[in-house]
């Protein structure tokens, strides 16, 4: 539906002045994604429960010449999500890009996993994507333009002992991404997922050395991924150039899963 997308947004290299919300972007992969977008001239909303870190990141982004707004809200709470989107709309007047990145782990074998661990991970990793996408498509439908990228994980496809909740939440994201893609394709909105493999972050640093060694042996490229490897894939999917790609998954895992 080329006619529905303003010409200025279909031309290459024109993400300048767009607005993006990246959830969970005070650190780790989220921060890397926000940074990659800011470098392309995109104004970014840095949302995180850790508002102090978010403020620091926002200051870093502003040094790149874009507007950055730190915002604290609970992505799994619909009232807070609705209020956050109202604030974003008020401040920027539009939302071009949503990256659902916020996530947590509460690992345990199924036998020992508590209900609370299951619920917390499903709510923060999966329900959040539903809530934020719901608000985003309202704004994006009106604009007849939008890019949604959901951060999944290789474990959505492979499973992982100790991560029943996490792998289920990430597999759920894949189905949700495809449905979002189908429902809003006619509104100029694309929805895709990026599934990182083993990326060097605080979340993976916490794993025991033995686990890391075993994982490395299963990666054909023979290295763990960097945050930028994920951020670059996201930056492509949210660009106007990716207009014909929707409902898909880009695996960023060094060949760990094909």
């Amino acid at each position, binding site marked *: 539906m080329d006619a529905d997308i303003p010409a200025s947004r279909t031309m290459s290299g024109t993400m300048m002045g767009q607005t993006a919300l990246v959830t969970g972007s005070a650190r780790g992969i989220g921060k890397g994604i926000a940074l990659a977008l800011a470098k392309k001239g995109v104004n970014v909303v840095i949302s995180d429960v850790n508002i102090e870190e978010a403020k620091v990141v926002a200051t870093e982004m502003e040094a790149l010449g874009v507007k950055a707004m730190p915002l604290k809200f609970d992505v799994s709470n619909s009232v807070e999500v609705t209020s956050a989107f109202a604030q974003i709309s008020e401040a920027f007047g539009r939302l071009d890009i949503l990256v659902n990145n916020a996530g947590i782990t509460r690992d345990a074998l199924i036998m020992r996993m508590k209900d609370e661990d299951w619920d917390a991970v499903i709510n923060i990793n999966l329900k959040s994507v539903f809530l934020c996408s719901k608000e985003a498509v*309202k704004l994006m*439908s*009106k604009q007849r333009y939008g890019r949604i990228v959901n951060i999944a994980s290789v474990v959505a496809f492979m499973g992982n002992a100790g991560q029943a909740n996490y792998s289920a939440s990430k597999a759920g994201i894949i189905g949700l991404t495809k449905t979002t893609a189908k*429902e*809003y394709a*006619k*509104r100029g909105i694309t929805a895709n997922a990026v599934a990182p493999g083993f990326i060097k972050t605080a979340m993976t640093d916490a794993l025991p050395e033995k686990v890391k060694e075993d994982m490395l042996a299963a990666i054909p490229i023979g290295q763990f991924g960097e945050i930028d490897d994920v951020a670059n894939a996201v930056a492509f999917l949210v660009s106007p150039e990716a207009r014909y790609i929707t409902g898909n998954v880009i695996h960023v895992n060094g060949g760990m899963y094909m």
Partner: protein
Amino acid sequence: MAEIEGKVKEIISKQLGIDVGQIKLESSFIEDLGADSLDNVELVMAFEEAFGIQIPDEAAEKITKVQDAVDYIKGKLG
């Protein structure tokens, strides 16, 4: 009251990309005006915003024709 009708037609025209002249009170959004289910949801959202009202889902489901929208909005603002 004719003002409401005019505004409703204008919103429909903008949302569905059709000429105001084609929109009759008896027109059904889906059957006559080519709307899909997503258009319907967006129309209701547009009415809510334009008239500063809340249209609950149960009421929204019953708004299938232009007249239904005009009546509902008149009732709310009346």
